[in-house]
């Protein structure tokens, strides 16, 4: 089996909450807790979860825009966390990020041509060549460089801006693209176009995607494999079909149940979910989902469940499927 393009083991990022007169650290927001996954070259890994589950933090950790406290991160076998600043700069050509907010992610003072060319200029491409490649990229994402190149961000629509973001990310010829809710801010009709563009680009350029979204339908549409996150932890992972056919974790089941569906077999009568969503500041002990879980058992409150296989590539972190609690780490 070929080496995974991206490999993460035990990634952890906690944010301190300061308060009190002297601004002491009162509590920790456990945004990303012990997250592990692999992405094979050429596949799309979808990461799904509600707001506040740590997806965006994870996206930034992968690109080292935020430094994790613990964990291993490997890109094509190379340890990313140990990379020197100059090595990191080189690595950034290979891993890029498409942001969620099409409005805030473009510098209002730069023409979109310049915004795209900037990435190339940073890496030493001569000015003329950078501009030419930027224009070519603009054309590839469906915007006429002659018409739009000299425009400013505020003159474009949301869908157009997102195309610019994609162009900016791809102009460096990366191998991995992390997309943080790339279509969430767009109208449904525009979403479809942008998603199709992304699929075309992926096959054209042999890209690997990590696609983050809270919208299950979108995730299903684009992903080969899916990671489900809840409050900073991975609760289930498997192929898109496996999760859609037989979601194992109660949270995954709830997600699929609440997603609008044309398939009558998918609709459930009773939602396996109850209670209020807690926050990541003081997550419940043991399994974090237990306060909303209809199947919660006493041992769910003691030790957090580990991921156990329930199929070929299907894993779940839930005591409904584990024989006994894992030994304390």
């Amino acid at each position, binding site marked *: 089996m070929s080496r995974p393009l991206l490999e993460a083991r035990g990634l952890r990022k906690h944010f301190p909450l300061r308060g009190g007169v002297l601004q002491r650290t009162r509590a920790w927001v456990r945004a990303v807790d012990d997250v592990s996954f692999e992405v094979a070259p050429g596949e799309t890994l979808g990461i799904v979860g509600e707001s506040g589950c740590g997806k965006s933090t994870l996206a*930034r950790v992968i*690109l080292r*825009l935020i430094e994790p406290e613990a964990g291993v991160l490997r890109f094509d076998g190379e340890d990313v966390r140990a990379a020197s600043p100059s090595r*990191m*700069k*080189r690595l*950034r*050509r290979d891993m*890029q*990020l498409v*942001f*969620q*907010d099409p409005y*805030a*992610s*473009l*510098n*209002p*003072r*730069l*023409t979109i041509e310049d*915004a795209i060319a*900037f*990435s190339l200029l*940073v*890496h030493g491409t001569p000015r003329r060549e950078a501009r030419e490649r930027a224009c070519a990229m603009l*054309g590839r994402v*469906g*915007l*006429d*460089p*002659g*018409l*739009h190149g*000299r*425009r*400013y961000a*505020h*003159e474009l*629509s949301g*869908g*157009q801006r997102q195309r610019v*973001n994609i162009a*900016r990310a791809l102009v*460096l010829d990366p191998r991995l693209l992390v997309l943080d809710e790339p279509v969430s801010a767009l*109208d449904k*009709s*525009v979403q479809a*176009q942008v998603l199709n563009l992304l699929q075309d680009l992926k096959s054209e350029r042999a890209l690997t995607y990590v696609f983050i979204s809270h919208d299950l339908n979108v995730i299903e549409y684009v992903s080969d494999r899916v990671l489900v996150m809840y409050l900073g932890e991975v609760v289930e992972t498997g192929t898109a079909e496996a999760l859609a056919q037989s979601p194992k974790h109660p949270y995954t089941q709830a997600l699929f149940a609440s997603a609008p569906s044309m398939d009558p077999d998918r609709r459930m009568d009773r939602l396996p979910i109850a209670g209020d969503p807690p926050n990541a500041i003081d997550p419940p002990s043991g399994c974090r989902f237990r306060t909303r879980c209809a199947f919660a058992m006493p041992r769910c409150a003691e030790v957090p469940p580990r991921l156990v296989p329930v199929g070929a590539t299907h894993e779940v972190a839930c005591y409904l499927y584990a024989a006994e609690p894992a030994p304390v780490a």
Partner: protein
Amino acid sequence: MAVSVALGEAPVVAVTPMSYWRTVGWRLSRDRATLLAGGVLLLIALSAVLAPWIAPYDPSAGSIRLRLAEVGAPGHVLGTDEQGRDMLSRLLWGGRMTLVAGLTPVLVALVLGAGLGVAAGYVGGITNTLIMRTMDIFYAFPAVLLAIAISGALGPGLANTLISLSIVFVPRVVRVAESATVQVKGLEYIAAARASGAGVRAIVRHHLLANVLGPILVFASTQVSLSIILAAGLSFLGLGVTPPAAEWGLMLNTLRQSIYVNAIVPALPGLAIFVTSMAFNLLSDGLRDAMEIRG
């Protein structure tokens, strides 16, 4: 290449968009009040620069015989002061002093303050705390008081006035610069630039400065009129420019006793300060309106 036409996206007409600064210039050219203020300032600046050539008399030469002549007196269009020196000449020469004392501190504060503020805002952490708390200490004094305190310690003279006024204005610019930088730093296009591999210098140069300079510039322009009033005020108190030099605030002070004899002449230097200050205020108002990002 084909025009981008798709569901939900209207076809785009080919129009040459104006760059941001062209838009600012265009807006300014339409604002009558600002244009008027600009014209007045230009006039004042020109007369100050050309003073050595257009002043009819030597500003320090006067004869007691002619003291406190009225406006419109023969040979002295604007009258004479308490030592018989021609008012028009002294006003022209005084303009140079006042403008220098008013503009220089703001320029110094702009450069220093922007540098410190952007550094504090971008680097954050201890650097930020150190810089901002130090500025807070200076902010504890009302401007007039701080200017007097420092000038009082350093002594009179133009150089000392420039130093003390610069110290007054730097903390204010630093505050605006830091706040703008922190706000821009959190925006996603900065994160995108980092993701592209750009280093701190590239980001600051290409992305941060352009977006941060606007508010800083507008703020600095609002401080000019205050600087002029303060500089003249310091001279008025005897802390700024020293006699026999001509400076509007100083002239106001020395002519003060003469208001019982001649009502109009003592008011003239103050009128000059007032007009200059108002012109700068109108200009900075217009600049702020023109630089607003709309659309």
